[in-house]
């Protein structure tokens, strides 16, 4: 009989003796090693309960991140191409898509609110310290500019050039560029400036990553809508995909524990898949399209890949945020040992 077994036998005898003598057992129970008894301690936190609250956004919000990102970049493409006098048809379509995107964006945001009827409260105050407030104003400014811009296009098409039309045009195009710039990437600032560890850890890179992803999806959306032969769009697609690849490598090289939800599990899979679909895959397809016979088909494939990648990127990061909030160790600065 081993020593451990003897101890346990002695313990059983002890319990029996106490029961015989007193009619009951008052001895304190021994906690078996590794038993699931919940504990509060500097090592286990408060019963391993998460300190932070999970994001309470509906799945419409990552969809908005995608639509808003593309919309802002579409506004910039449509206005800049026009100001530079390049590819008229493409620029016109980009501006109409930007206007539609602004409408869809606003709708998605309003429907997600707990009290949609109070959406105008967003414009009660302007708070530079709140990215949510800045974003609301930026989207409003962009929507107004896109509307002016498209109104100018409409007036010009109906009545030809006039002072009124060109005033609308200048105002709309300038506004679309000025507001389109923050609109296409502020959502990265928005989720970065939170207590969610996986987001806050990437506070500097998320605005870049979301921004370039927005630019790519804008170019890709134009390509699938019938402009798959524009060399300029191919160039934009290549630049943004190159940047997304670099961001992806940067994420992989960073071994911070807070980033695990963006690397492992389902959310990690989404982020990785998004990185591949908006990085190396479209680069390969776009370069191949320069030499292949069936250029259009390859360009379309690259565009679809970019759009899907951009969409998955937002869902992946938002889902990673939810998982990150559940990690009770990080905000309590408890060393994970093995994560």
């Amino acid at each position: 009989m081993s020593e451990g077994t003897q101890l346990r036998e002695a313990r059983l005898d002890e319990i029996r003796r106490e029961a015989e003598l007193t009619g009951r057992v008052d001895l304190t129970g021994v906690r078996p090693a590794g038993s699931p008894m919940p504990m509060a301690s500097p090592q286990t936190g408060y019963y391993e309960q998460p300190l932070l609250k999970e994001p309470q956004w509906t799945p419409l919000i990552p969809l908005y991140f995608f639509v808003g990102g593309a919309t802002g970049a579409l506004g910039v493409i449509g206005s800049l191409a026009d100001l530079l006098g390049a590819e008229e048809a493409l620029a016109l379509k980009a501006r109409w898509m930007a206007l539609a995107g602004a409408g869809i964006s606003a709708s998605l945001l309003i429907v997600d609110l707990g009290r949609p009827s109070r959406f105008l409260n967003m414009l009660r105050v302007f708070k530079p310290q709140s990215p949510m407030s800045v974003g609301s104003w930026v989207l409003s400014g962009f929507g107004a500019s896109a509307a002016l811009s498209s109104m100018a296009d409409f007036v010009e098409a109906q009545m030809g050039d006039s002072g009124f039309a060109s005033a609308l045009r200048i105002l709309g195009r300038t506004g679309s560029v000025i507001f389109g710039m923050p609109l296409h990437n502020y959502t990265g600032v928005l989720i970065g400036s939170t207590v969610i560890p996986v987001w806050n850890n990437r506070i500097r890179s998320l605005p870049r990553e979301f921004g370039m992803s927005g630019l790519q999806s804008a170019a890709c959306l134009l390509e699938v809508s019938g402009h798959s032969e524009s060399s300029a769009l191919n160039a934009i697609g290549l630049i943004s995909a190159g940047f997304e690849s670099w961001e992806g490598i940067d994420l992989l090289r960073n071994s911070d524990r807070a980033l695990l939800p963006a690397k492992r599990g389902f959310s990690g899979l989404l982020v990785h898949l998004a990185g591949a679909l908006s990085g190396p895959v479209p680069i390969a397809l776009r370069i191949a399209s320069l030499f292949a016979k069936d250029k259009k088909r390859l360009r379309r494939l690259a565009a679809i890949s970019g759009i899907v990648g951009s969409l998955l990127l937002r869902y992946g990061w938002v889902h990673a945020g939810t998982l990150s909030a559940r990690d009770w160790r990080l905000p309590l600065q408890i060393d994970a040992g093995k994560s």
Partner: protein
Amino acid sequence: MTANMGHTGIQPGEVTAFLTDSTLCIGCKACEVACKEWNGIEADGMDFTGFSYDNTTALGHSTWRHVKFVEGTPEPGIGGNDAELMSWAFSSDVCKHCEVAGCLEACPTGSLVRTEFGGVYLQPDICNGCAYCVVACPFGVVQKNEDDGRAFKCTFCTDRQKAGLEPACAKACPTESIKFGRLEDIREETSKRMEVLRERGMADAQVYDPTETSVKGIHSIFILRGEPATYNLPAKPEVPTLYMKDAWRSAAIEAAAMVASVAAAFLFWKNSAQDGGR
């Protein structure tokens, strides 16, 4: 209102605070009940968690005071007297009413405001339920009520304070574990209490008031025994907007890069694709 209602004598404009002293808490949950009754908060439901006597687990939209039951390995002196007994300590948690509050910074509607007593108050008639404050609180206090649509948190009983009354939880506390008063008085009381505890040999007692972090101090000071992590309190809570300037800088640089790329693309490939590929 009669004199025995006990007017605090605190006028609007004076900054107030809680001191929650876990060494005096008996875990009766009177504060939770008083808070719910006074503020008319809905029930949390009947859950059994298995975490000591705590079936509420955390602060949330329907829990503004939350008594923690800290059960740990046997340790003589901590919460128990016997080396064989599990240690058992209690501490009533509440919104920290931060000096620099993440939720207040994040709120886009101006629903969250700083009150005349220095607390952070969520105006339910303004909140539109965008839920951004939920991910801005380093203490996980604010939560959106999915049924109602709005976010809720401790009001610091601003309504009672305006009427010269102490918050409901402090009033209901039978052991004065929850004290309420002017911030400077509370800080003084805290250090006095710490002296007493040290004299009695309670070496592990410590004050939780993170003034050294970007939160810059709280209006709900705690006296705890042992590490704050045991009580689910972060040792270094930070306001999430701490690095926001860097984020906007990144955004500005990337936006400039986008404009440059788009401009370059349309300038260089202007002529090679004039028909735009219709």
